[in-house]
C-alpha cells in the first residue's frame, strides 16, 4: 500500500505481492457448476487478462471477487482481507480501494457524467464539493473525454464514451485495483486500440492493478502482462502471452493460433514466431 505511481512489474520481478488471492473457489448455479477448485493470484501492478470461451464464467469470476456473487466454497483475499467472510464494516474500506467498470458502463442514467463520477466521492470522501467537482473533472479528462461531456447524460453518449465515463467513475476514489468487464467489446478497432492505450497509460501513471475480462486478442497482445485462461471450471493455465501457443489444450491452441490471433500477434510483434525471426 505504498502510494500510487509505481511502474508495472512484469513476471520477472522476484518479490511480488499477491493483491488478490483466490483459493479453491467453487461457484454453482443450481446443478450447474461454473467454477470448481479455482485458484488465481493477481500480482500488484500487473495487467491480468482473463480469457475463456463463452459460458466459462469469466464475468462470474469478476462478480464473485467484487462481492456481487457469493461463492459456494473457497476463499478470496483482496488486499489482505478475506472478502467472502468479512463483515460489511471490514469490507467497506477494501471496496473503496477497487473500482469496477461494467461492460455497458452501468452509469446511473438519471445523473450526468460529472455527477456519476462524483457519486462515490460524495458517499465516501470528506471534502468540499468544489474539490470533488475538480477531481471528477480531472478523472473525466484523464480518461480522454472532453469537458463538454461532463454535462451530458449517459444516454446522450456514444458506446465508447460511455465506457470511458464508466472508467472515470471506477477511478473516482483513486483505487489500487480496477476491474474491467470486456472493456473493448463493441468498440471499433481504432476506438478499441485507443482504449487499450488509455488503460495502459493510466495503469502506468497511477500504478494500478488491472483485472480485465476480455475477448479481444488485440488487447491481450497490446496491454496484458499476464493471461489466465479459464477452462474446465478452473484457471487452466496462466502466464505471459508468449507462452500461450505452447499450451497443449485444444481450446487454448485454437484461441491463440487461430487466424485472428496471428493477425493480432503480427501487429504487436510479441508472439514467439515473430520474436524468433
Amino acid at each position: 500500500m505504498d502510494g500510487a505511481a509505481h511502474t508495472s512489474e512484469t513476471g520477472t520481478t522476484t518479490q511480488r505481492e499477491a493483491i488478490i488471492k483466490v483459493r479453491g473457489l467453487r461457484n454453482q448455479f443450481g446443478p450447474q457448476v461454473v467454477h470448481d477448485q479455482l485458484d488465481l493470484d493477481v500480482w500488484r501492478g500487473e495487467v491480468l487478462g482473463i480469457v475463456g470461451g463463452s459460458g466459462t464464467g469469466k464475468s462470474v469470476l469478476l462478480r464473485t471477487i467484487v462481492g456481487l456473487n457469493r461463492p459456494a466454497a473457497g476463499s478470496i483475499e483482496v488486499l489482505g482481507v478475506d472478502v467472502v467472510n468479512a463483515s460489511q464494516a471490514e469490507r467497506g474500506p477494501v471496496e473503496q480501494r477497487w473500482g469496477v467498470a461494467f461492460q455497458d458502463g452501468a452509469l446511473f442514467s438519471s445523473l450526468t457524467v460529472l455527477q456519476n463520477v462524483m457519486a462515490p466521492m460524495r458517499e465516501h470522501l470528506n471534502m468540499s464539493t468544489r474539490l470533488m467537482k475538480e477531481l471528477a473533472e480531472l478523472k473525466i479528462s484523464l480518461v480522454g473525454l472532453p469537458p463538454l461531456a461532463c454535462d451530458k447524460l449517459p444516454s446522450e453518449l456514444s458506446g465508447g464514451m460511455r465506457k470511458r465515463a464508466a472508467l472515470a467513475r471506477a477511478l473516482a476514489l483513486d483505487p489500487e485495483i480496477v476491474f474491467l468487464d470486456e472493456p473493448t467489446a463493441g468498440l471499433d478497432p481504432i476506438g478499441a486500440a485507443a482504449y487499450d492505450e488509455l488503460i495502459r497509460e493510466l495503469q502506468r501513471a497511477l500504478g494500478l492493478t488491472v483485472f480485465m475480462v476480455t475477448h479481444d486478442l488485440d488487447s491481450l497482445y497490446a496491454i496484458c502482462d499476464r493471461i489466465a485462461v479459464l477452462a474446465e471450471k478452473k484457471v487452466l493455465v496462466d502466464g505471459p502471452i508468449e507462452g500461450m501457443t505452447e499450451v497443449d489444450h485444444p481450446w487454448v491452441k485454437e484461441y491463440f493460433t487461430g487466424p485472428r490471433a496471428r493477425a493480432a500477434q503480427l501487429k504487436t510483434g510479441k508472439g514467439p514466431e515473430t520474436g524468433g525471426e
Partner: protein
Amino acid sequence: MSAPTLTMEGSDNGAVLHLAGRFLTQSLGSVEKAFADVSVGTGALRIDMSRVDGMDTGGAWLISDLMRRQEATGGQVALESVAPAFEALIETVRAADPHEHFDEAPPRSFRGFLEMTGKGVVNGWHDTVSLFSFFGETLAALFGTLVRPWNLRAASLFSHMQDAGFNAIPIVGLMGFLIGVVLAFQGATQLQQFGAEVFVVELIAISIMRELGVLLTAIIVAGRSGSAFTASVGSMKVQEEVDAMRTLGLNPIDVLVLPRVLALLITLPILVFICVITGLFGGALMSWINLDITPGMFMTRLQDTTDVKHLIVGLVKAPFFAVMIGVIACWQAFQVKGSATSVGQRTTTSVVQAIFMVIALDALFSIFFAQMGI
C-alpha cells in the same frame, strides 16, 4: 497512516512549502483548506516534497492546482526533492488538467423564465400535434385490420385482454361493491331526514350506471393497464426493439399498439358492466341492512323507476374512454427517449394524462347528453 501536513516557511530567497505525509484522496479533506490558504504571491515558491511518502491523483491535483495558481499570478514555482514516480504523476495530472471548467445550472433570471415558458408552449404544441397524428395512425391501422382481419395479432390481443381485462375483474368488482355501499350509506342518512329512504334505489342506480361505474372503472384501468402499457412499450423503445421492428418491416402500431387498444376497447365495457352489477349489489345489501329495504323491494323499485337508458349512457362512454387510455399510454411509450428515468417519467405522465382526459371527456359527454335530453 501519516496524515498529510503543510508547513509554510519564509526564507530570504522566497517561500518554501514543506509537504509531509501521504497525500491520498481519502485524506485530502483535512488539507484542502490549507492548500487554498497558501498565499499566492508573485515571488518564488519552492515546494519541498522530501517527506512525502504517498500520493495519488487527488494529491497530485492539489499540488498541480497550487502550481497553476502560482504561475497564473506571475510567480515562480519549483518542486524540490520529489520522487520520480510522484513527479511523473504530477506531470500526468497537469497534462490532463481540463483547464476550462464548465458551469452548472445557468443562473435563473426573468429571461430564463420567459425562455422556459416559450419552450413549454412550443413543446406543448408539438406534443398535441404528435398525439393527434399518433391517434390517426392508430385509427388507420384499426381500419386496415377491419379490412383484413387476418392481419390482427390474435395471440397478443387475447393476452392483453387477459392482463387488462380478466385480471382486473376482482379489483373492479370490489371497487364497484364498495361504491354501492358508500352511496347507500351516505344517501340513506341524508334521505332519512325527509323520510324519502326509498329513493336511495334511484340514487344508487342512476349514479352508478350513468357516471360512477364507468368513470371509476376507467380510472382504475388507466392506472393499472395504462401504466403497464407505457412501461412495457417504453422499455422496448429503450432497448431499440421498436426500431428493430421497423427494420424487419413490422409496423409497431400494428404489433404493439393495436392489440393493446383493441383489448381495452373490448374489455372496458365488460368491466364497466361488472362494476355496475357489483355496485348495485353492494347498494342493495347496504339498503337492506341500514334501511330495511329488502332485496325484493330493491329489485322491483329498480325495474319500475330506473330507465335502462341510464345503463346505456354509461356503457356508451366506455369504448371512448378505452381508446383514450390506450392511445395516450402507447403514445407516451413512443415518446420515451434513452434511459430508464425517461420510462418512469413517461409512465407517470401517461397515467395522469389518461385520467385527466377521461374526466374531461366525461364532462363533454354530460353536456352532450343533457343537451340531447337523454
